[in-house]
């Protein structure tokens, strides 16, 4: 069965891509054919992934494509199944969301066919990356994914920001791909062949495996968005169409995580604890950096993009812990870290897609992407508001939603540090835990800002005031993901049971202790050490509410209306208006003061002088822009260096024939001299 399902899952996105070619002539094709095909493919993919994941089986397929001596090998094992399911879930949600969302493009300047074509191919590329079982098809799939998503980023290329983002994205994707290729090349060189099976047999010395690992970290990290190679992410995600942002941020980054896991645990194997320390450092920096920059953003999608950096950091913390434990022989704890990372991967995929879809709905309905121009959207788009709130709670790691479970698992892993022999490691890991805790708290602050500024309060602009609820499909797509946020938050034991199969495929270990006490209890190491029962927490909340209802019924004041509505208290001055509300920039101000060295802040104050009274301006505009510090310290020097070299190399092309002939002459003489 998996054979057929696989073919169908792989075929439908292509079919969707091809169908969209007709979308320019018949725009209805997109809504009625292309997106449903994608969704159908996603549903098949969910079944395929779950089937593989739950049964823990694996199957190999060889397709007569590729090089004569290296056909495309595809392999579907539990880990691949996990990621296929993860991709497919988001694809299904997007296929519900998409038809409504792209309505605004139907009369736009860009052809719909391009959007549909590359969306289909993009999804196809992601599926293939996960399935690839040899380096060659992996690279093809990987680059297909990069290239198509690049075309999607530049879809609205009339805007300069999109072009710039696209260039940056493609350049970094290319550099990353080259690093990955090199890493594979090392494995293939030692392991006699480019199939993953051959690469697994490679026996690498510590130096070579560390080089391969570092290259993999560079390559996959560039796609995943770890600091400091994350810069494309906050540029590219905000400018892509929102359902594409959801796919990119929600799924594509996870595909990079997949590749990284596959490379380091499976292909290189024999993980070293030193790598774990590196990952831990990278993870902590990314997490903190991501959330601190997110706090300074007021463009909603850009903010979410920085949060992706943060969450990737959290995943890397989990992976780092896992490698430290595996590398020091603590397989159970290593698996715990891996499970935490995988769980967070799943969670981030779901809530980040949810948030991007929500941001897309807001963007489409209000035509605003800057939070400073929003406000009061909850009453105007109640469903989107509700689902967005669920996304915010999940990403802020609050119980009983899903984000909490994975961060909890990560904490639990970190807390097992005393079982390590090395004192330094024992001391380092708590620091990582501290930064994770700080990250979580800051993320909560950030999402209070996001939700409070954009959905609560009063509408700050006319656009925000006129907003109305998104279409039914868009709401449904978000609702689907929101429900999953709750389900994965409340039933962690079941989820981990499934994830166990994936870790089994990757490292031959699984975390059976976590679910040893039945579905109600989650006990990562043992019941004495830590336990969490999310279903009971939910039950407790419900019981508390029921109890309150009873108390309220008894104590209810009789005779007059239960609640009255009145104007907001204005301290007696009168004339409250929306502009008096706290802004996003103001909200983050205290945090800005605390962590000020982290950013390069550009403040701009514009005063419009009043006529006759130059001292008292009629209007003051304040703008704050937090520039990514990595630009100044890493990217601009590289660019400068490149230009300097290019200029000096350019000097050899002087334009004078005599010089050119001298080159030939000297070359000849030199070579003759060389050989005698």
């Amino acid at each position, binding site marked *: 069965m998996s054979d057929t399902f696989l073919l169908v899952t792989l075929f439908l996105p292509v079919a969707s891509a091809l169908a969209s070619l007709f979308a320019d002539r018949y725009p209805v094709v997109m809504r009625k054919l292309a997106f449903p095909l994608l969704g159908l493919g996603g549903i098949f993919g969910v079944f395929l992934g779950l089937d593989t994941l739950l049964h823990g089986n694996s199957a190999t397929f060889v397709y007569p494509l590729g090089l004569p001596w290296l056909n495309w090998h595809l392999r579907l094992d539990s880990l691949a199944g996990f990621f296929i399911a993860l991709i497919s879930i988001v694809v299904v949600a997007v296929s519900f969301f998409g038809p409504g969302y792209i309505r605004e493009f139907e009369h736009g300047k860009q052809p719909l066919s391009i959007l549909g074509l590359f969306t289909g191919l993009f999804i196809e590329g992601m599926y293939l990356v996960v399935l690839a079982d040899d380096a060659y098809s992996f690279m093809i799939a990987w680059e297909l994914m990069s290239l198509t998503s690049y075309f999607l980023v530049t879809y609205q290329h009339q805007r300069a920001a999109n072009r710039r983002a696209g260039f940056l994205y493609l350049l970094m994707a290319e550099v990353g791909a080259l690093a990955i290729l090199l890493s594979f090349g090392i494995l293939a060189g030692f392991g006699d062949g480019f199939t993953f099976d051959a690469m697994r047999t490679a026996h690498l010395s510590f130096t070579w495996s560390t080089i391969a690992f570092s290259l993999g970290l560079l390559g996959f990290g560039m796609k995943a968005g770890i600091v400091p190679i994350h810069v494309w992410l906050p540029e590219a995600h905000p400018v892509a169409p929102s359902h594409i942002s959801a796919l990119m941020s929600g799924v594509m980054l996870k595909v990079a995580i997949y590749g990284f896991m596959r490379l380091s645990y499976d292909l290189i194997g024999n993980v070293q604890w030193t790598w774990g320390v590196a990952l831990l450092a990278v993870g902590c920096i990314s997490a903190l950096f991501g959330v601190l920059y997110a706090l300074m953003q007021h463009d909603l999608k850009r903010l979410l993009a920085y949060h992706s950096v943060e969450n990737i950091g959290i995943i890397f913390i989990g992976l780092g812990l896992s490698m430290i434990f595996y590398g020091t022989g603590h397989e159970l704890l290593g698996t715990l870290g891996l499970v935490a990372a995988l769980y967070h991967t799943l969670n981030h995929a779901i809530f980040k897609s949810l948030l991007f879809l929500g941001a897309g709905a807001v963007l489409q309905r209000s035509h605003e992407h800057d939070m400073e121009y929003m*406000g*009061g959207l909850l009453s105007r788009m*109640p469903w989107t508001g509700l689902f967005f*709130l669920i996304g915010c709670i999940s990403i*802020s*790691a609050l*119980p009983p939603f899903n984000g909490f479970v994975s961060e*909890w698992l990560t*904490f*639990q892993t970190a*807390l097992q*540090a005393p079982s390590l022999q090395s*004192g330094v490691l*024992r*001391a380092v890991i*708590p620091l990582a835990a*501290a930064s994770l*805790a*700080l990250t*979580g*708290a800051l993320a*909560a*602050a950030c999402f*209070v800002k996001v*939700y*409070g*500024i954009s959905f*609560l*309060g009063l509408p700050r602009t006319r656009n925000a005031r006129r907003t109305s609820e998104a279409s039914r499909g868009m709401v449904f797509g978000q609702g689907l993901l929101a429900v999953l946020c709750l389900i994965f938050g409340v039933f962690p034991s079941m989820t981990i049971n499934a994830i166990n199969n994936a870790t089994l495929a990757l490292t031959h270990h699984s975390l059976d202790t976590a679910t040893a006490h039945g579905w109600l209890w989650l006990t990562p190491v043992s*019941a*004495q*050490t*830590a*336990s969490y*029962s999310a279903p*009971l*927490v939910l039950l*407790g*909340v419900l019981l*508390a509410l029921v109890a*309150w209802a009873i108390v*309220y019924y008894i104590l209810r004041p009789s005779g007059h*209306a*239960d*609640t*009255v*509505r009145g*104007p*907001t*208290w*204005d301290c007696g001055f009168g004339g409250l208006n*929306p502009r*008096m*509300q*706290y802004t996003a920039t103001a*909200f983050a101000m*205290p*945090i800005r*003061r*605390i962590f000020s060295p982290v950013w390069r802040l550009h403040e701009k104050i514009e005063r419009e002088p009043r006529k006759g009274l130059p001292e008292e301006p009629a209007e003051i505009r304040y703008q704050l822009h937090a520039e990514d510090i990595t630009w100044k310290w890493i990217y601009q020097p590289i660019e400068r260096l490149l230009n300097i070299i290019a200029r000096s190399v350019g000097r050899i092309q002087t334009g004078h024939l005599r010089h050119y002939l001298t080159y030939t002459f000297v070359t000849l003489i030199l070579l003759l001299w060389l050989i005698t």
Partner: protein
Amino acid sequence: MNNWILALIQAALFIIFAPLFAGWIKRVKCWLQNRRPPSLLQPYQDLRRLLSKQVVMSVDASAVFRVAPYIVAAATLLAAIVVPLIAVNLPTTAIADVIVLAGFFALARFFLALAGMDIGTAFGGMGSSREMTISALAEPAMLMAVFTLAMVASSTNLSTVIHYVLADGMVLRPSLLFALLSMLLVGIAETGRIPVDNPATHLELTMIHEAMILEYSGRHLALIEWAAQLKLMLYSVLIINIFFPWGIASELNLVMLSTAIFAITAKLMILGAVLAVSETIMAKMRLFRVTIFLVLALTLALIGILSHIVLEIH
């Protein structure tokens, strides 16, 4: 089954005695400040009065505003269920460990902060912004302090931790000392006491917690007030039972339970008095000084954890 009932009773004790504890602190403070204290039961009076009042809500309030008090109360209540008051080994403590406990508080705070921003006044936003800033530092400090314990006892389950401290007897551990100090500072910050926040003031420049709930009235306000009192008591009990657990019932018989009730009452009275003294002799800090206060808490917690690793593991 008995254990479950006992656990519920324990939670009920929390709910019932939280206002009393708040009243006790207020009373000691009045004594210290040479004022005539109100009745010990005054907090109950206030709650009853609020509950019976009509709710007046801004026309701009959204669903979040209405829901928030219930979520705040429910989350705090859940926290009360899992914190051991008079007995360890209760089944409810397994529902959530100390990290989840922090999660419950975070959930409550999240919604309170959202509610503060819902109406669209400057006060609410200001309160929320400050609250989230403070918690951004306080929460990690608390987790770090808790992690010190968790590492000492190799567990994050409160029951196990308390058991461990009980079984260990009187041992002077530098790590726990630092953790205690840190927890005290965090507790002060998180429950909005002087010098971080002043629950008695409504001065716009200094308000934090009060600024967020400025628009609440009637039963909503009652729930929030009561949740705040509960949180104060929870933090106190947490500190007492983790660091000074002696007297708590480790077996569920009548003698031990009554001893435990007596012990916890005494300890709470002492802690409340200490808090009152500190609030009397200290002045509220400027907002940006609070940062230093919290960084201190964080540093203490980190030193605690590091001293455990460096000094106590061999």
